């Protein structure tokens, strides 16, 4: 079990006052700005109404903001201590939805908490980062570089990824695998091993294809050729590109997107909100969002580099990478660069669990920064 080295930490542990002073103002401003834009876009998506989405989103963001601050003020060692427990809770919840999903009708990805619907797969994104960070924190480099050392973390990734995929939620499963993969990469797993995995994946693809649901196959086929079925599966991506392209450099103006407001653009409040934003604010608005997201990632990186603990560094980079994959997969998908996989744009798309999990992630990243001077010893 994990041991505290109380004496050596005393001086490094910041007081509450120090913690509050250390909350990165710029970082929080970026997040607030992004969330505000998101709420305005939801206001536009409802044709200039606060209901049904914008107001709700604001409330959830408020809750998420509170969670972020609370997590930011939490000692980094607490996250490390409960990393595995948290991981197992998330895993059990995933199994629960898997079982109830089979009993209920079709795909069920959430547990109803009454005031909100909890998606265990969102919890798992954070839990996995924390658990892997704790595992690699306490594992020597030789073990990491050995095949044997990859068995445990490999299982930690593949098991939840498999559960999420059978929900079926290919997008989230891929995000778990990618985020974990990025963490494997930064901790020093040799490149040839990635080569082997990628090669195996390519070889297995025809077999995997067989196991894909029809709608997933359709999405891939449609991605390869959207004109294949312009009124059916290809409709979303064709209309998305029309909306984006017709926005031009400066956009059609707030509330003036024709594709979105005349309902040619589907899912404009969730997965395709970036399209609506690009239609109304053009290349300038869309680039601004990308840059804002990049700044959040870049700041997270700088927090990671300033942390004196391996766990802290790895957690911050893992969570930033998770955030990055949200942004990249969502935008690449609405731009027609990758198949439609159903990943929202964090803080902009409508959806409660994503806000909470992303804000919790930012809280942990802030905690890494605030507790940067705490040096955590090996297990």
């Amino acid at each position, binding site marked *: 079990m994990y041991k505290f080295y109380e004496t050596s930490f005393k001086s490094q542990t910041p007081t509450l006052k120090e913690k509050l002073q250390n909350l990165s103002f710029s970082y929080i401003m970026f997040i607030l700005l992004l969330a505000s834009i998101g709420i305005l876009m939801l206001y536009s998506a409802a044709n200039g109404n606060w209901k049904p989405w914008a107001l709700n989103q604001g409330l959830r963001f408020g809750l998420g903001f509170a969670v972020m601050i609370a997590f930011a003020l939490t000692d980094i060692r607490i996250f490390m201590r409960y990393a595995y427990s948290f991981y197992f809770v998330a895993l059990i919840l995933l199994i629960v939805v898997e079982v109830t999903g089979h009993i209920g009708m079709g795909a069920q990805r959430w547990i109803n908490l009454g005031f909100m619907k909890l998606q265990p797969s969102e919890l798992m994104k954070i839990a996995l980062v924390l658990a892997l960070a704790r595992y690699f924190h306490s594992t*020597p*480099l*030789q073990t*990491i570089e050995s095949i044997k050392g990859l068995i445990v973390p490999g299982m930690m990734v593949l098991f939840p990824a498999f559960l999420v995929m059978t929900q079926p939620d290919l997008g989230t499963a891929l995000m778990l695998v990618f985020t974990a993969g*990025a963490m494997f*990469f*930064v*901790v*020093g797993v040799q490149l040839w091993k990635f080569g082997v995995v990628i090669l195996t994946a390519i070889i297995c693809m025809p077999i995997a294809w067989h196991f894909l649901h029809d709608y997933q196959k359709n999405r891939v086929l449609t991605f390869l050729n959207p004109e294949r079925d312009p009124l059916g599966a290809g409709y979303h991506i064709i*209309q998305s*590109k*029309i*909306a*984006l*392209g*017709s*926005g*031009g*450099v400066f956009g059609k103006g707030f509330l003036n997107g*024709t*594709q979105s407001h*005349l*309902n*040619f653009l589907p899912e404009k409040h969730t997965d395709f909100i970036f399209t609506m934003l*690009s239609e109304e604010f*053009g*290349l300038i608005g*869309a*680039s601004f969002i*990308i840059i804002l*997201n*990049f700044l959040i*990632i*870049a700041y997270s*990186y700088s927090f*990671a*580099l300033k942390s004196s603990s*391996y766990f802290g*560094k*790895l957690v911050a*980079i893992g969570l930033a*990478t998770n955030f*990055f994959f949200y*942004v*990249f997969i969502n*935008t*690449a998908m609405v*731009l027609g*660069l990758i198949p439609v996989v159903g990943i929202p744009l964090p803080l902009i798309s409508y959806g409660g669990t994503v806000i909470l999990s992303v804000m919790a992630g930012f809280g942990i990243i802030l905690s890494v920064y605030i507790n940067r001077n705490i040096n955590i010893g*090996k297990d």
Partner: protein
Amino acid sequence: MNRDNDKGKVLISRSLILGVGKLVLLLVIIARLYYLQVYQADKYKMLADENRISTRLLVPPRGIIYDRHMKELATNRQNFQASIVAEQTTNVQETLDAFKKIMPLSEAEEEKIKKDLRKNRSFVPIKIKDNLTWEEVAKIQLNAPDLPGIMIDEGLLRYYPLGEKAAPVVGYVSSVSDNDKKDDPLLEIPGFKIGKAGIEKLFEHPLRGKGGHLKLEVNAYGRVMKEIERNDGVSGEKIELSIDSRLQEKAYDLFGEESGAAILMNANSGEILAFVSTPAYDPNVMTQGISQKEWSELNNNERHPLVNKALSGQYSPGSTFKMVVALAALEAGVITPQTRSFCAGKMMLGNHTFHCWKGFGHGYINVVQALEHSCDIFFYETAQKVGINKIAEMARRFGLGDKINIGLENEKSGLIPDTDWKIRRFGEPWQQGESLISGIGQGYVLATPIQLATMTARIANGGYEVVPTFKKASEQNVTELKKIDIAPAYLDLVKQGMYDVVNSQGGTAYAHRIDFNGQKMSGKTGTTQVRRITMKERQSGVLRQEDLPWHLRNHALFVGYAPHDNPKYAIAVLVEHGRGGSVAADLAGKLLLQALKLDASEQPVE
């Protein structure tokens, strides 16, 4: 410890590589945005507009056709139509049932409505019934609370107040067929109608006007959000015809059950005041869509209601051709006003016997008397003397043998034979006997009623080349027209003969003379056989016309003008199988009298 150091270093260097990778991927996103939003922006802007803008053509109101006194001959009537909008009623069947209580619907109609409802989106109005009367509209509106989703639409429907009476002139409009030239996007509109006959066809373009358009913003489901642009187009031009609908109606009514054609025109200006072909079709029925059965009934009717007999009917002019023969002979000098022939009722040429219509003969008569009594023997002899070529040449001067080119469809050119024509047509030389029967307007000679009216007008106006027209003319002076090369004295002689036909006690149309304040009619009767009278029948007594089946009876013709002293109106009447020329003369007299009376009533009181 060393390895721990390495572990930290690896983490940092690999993290930086990962960070650079992320930056690159985000730049790819921005590059893609640039590609779509700058490089391909125009293409997608166009596609977005195609999505949201729906352009609808606006049909311009068709030009009204008026008669010379601005009475409507073709107009646009409001057409009320009841439609149902499915999304505006909770229960379509209940609404339809409620509607049926007010106005019965046949099972087929109800089936069609339900089929249309299934095929269309719920906000599209579906036609239930059209051509609603005012009463029916009022009934529906009164019951509106029980009829949720029912609405009344207004459209325009072409309406012809005179119906079949003016159909040969005005024509009709009907749906665009595959053979029509699609030179205007308006023609692509379902239900759009274009002129198919008569003035409606001749002046199709000015009457049609120019289509406007309406640009609407629609959403993804096709619902109209707002109007973006509207261009009402240009309404069709109104057209004023020379027709006087009172005379047009009168002429049609005078035919009664008879079939035939009549043209009443101004002998000086050429304006046609009445242009009748009977029986005719009802253009209102044609416009609303005619069933296959109705169409084939019209087509197979032995009286040919679809044929415009005034323009397309070619008939032997019979005795109405005798003026031309007389003029040709006088000009050629083969007869003089004093030349007399002896009519014994028949004459021989070679082995053939040629009969006069009057079995006992007319005795010694001159040209004026020959016209008055319509003596055939005189004109056999005269024709024989003058020869066919001179007759033909004279006939052409008076407008026979060639199309008038009045503009309406299926105009026929008639036929004025001459020796060259005979060679060309049959490869045989002209026979003298053929000249004889041509002299009484039979044989190869054919003319349309409009040609006969033209001929008569040119005689009446003193030899001016008047051309009939449907266009209302401002006062036209006859002297502006080209003069026909004919000696006035010969014309006067012929006109004297025509005067005597009607006004002299022995004249063939004496019974039909008119006298309105001293204004009298002149004219010439004609009767043309449509069957050959055999030698045997002549011996046993020619059958009376009344005893013959309709289609074997003689055609009756009359050409004339009035007033005799200062001719204003020229007329040609043809009554198909009308037995004898006096039937036509009676009709012509009554119509001319009506025209004179109308003139008098319109004279300003001094």
